[in-house]
């Protein structure tokens, strides 16, 4: 009972955070709204019993990605014209597209077959996750590490090209 209430609470907070992202003016407030959404999604993952992903959501998304993002917002000039005017000329078609897309997706969800309902699936913790991850999907693990190295090298290359061009 309390889990259902918490689930609805976290879903409402995630929804409110995403709407606040769309209407907030300053990028820092957008970032804080996104952090709120991500934390409530982590709460939902924990309620679903997928604790590994809840921890990774907090560690990787909130801890790494969003801290990086907030740091960059602090570096950027606040008198930017993009800070003053929030919306581009696409506002009305964008809102119409949002309503249309959300309506189509929710209509498909409502019309679709209901869940197969294997609600008795055991919650998987760290151990089954890492067994599957490092036994069956070790190749993807290694490829992801290669991707991260490539991303670091590419970021350094981008910064170096920029400093050479602008002195």
């Amino acid at each position: 009972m309390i889990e259902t209430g918490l689930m609805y609470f976290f879903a409402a907070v995630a929804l409110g955070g995403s709407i606040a992202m769309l209407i907030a003016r300053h990028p820092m407030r957008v970032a804080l709204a996104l952090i709120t959404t991500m934390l409530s999604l982590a709460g939902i993952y924990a309620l679903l019993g997928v604790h590994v992903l809840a921890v990774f959501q907090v560690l990787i998304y909130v801890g790494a990605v969003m801290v990086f993002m907030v740091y960059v917002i602090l570096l950027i000039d606040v008198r930017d014209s993009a800070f003053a005017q929030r919306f581009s000329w696409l506002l009305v078609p964008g809102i119409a597209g949002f309503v249309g897309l959300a309506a189509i997706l929710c209509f498909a969800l409502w019309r679709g077959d209901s869940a197969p309902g294997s609600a008795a699936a055991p919650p998987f913790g760290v151990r089954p996750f890492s067994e599957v991850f490092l036994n069956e999907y070790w190749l993807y693990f290694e490829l992801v590490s290669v991707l991260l190295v490539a991303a670091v090298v590419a970021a350094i290359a981008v910064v170096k090209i920029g400093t050479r061009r602008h002195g």
Partner: protein
Amino acid sequence: MADTELLVGLGAVLYAAGLVGVMVRRNALVMLMCMELMLNGVNLTLVTFARQTGATEGAVLVFLVFVVAAAEVAIAIPILLLLARARRTLDVEAYAELKG
């Protein structure tokens, strides 16, 4: 199982909100954050379905999506900083040279 439908619907709405954010907002950094919101919506759907079928593979896939998103941000942020240094603005209206 009403939870599944609630969460898949929430994922769909988060995805749509991220998409409209990318389309509507002017600040390139905010557009990047809205892309992260789209990724989060898809992740929520993936986790919900993985939980429903008890498949651990879904969790592995979500973890890989986390790492790819981190790599994407690590590339995108230096590009945005260079853009801001070149034009003194992050307004996407200022970068319209390719418009015909």
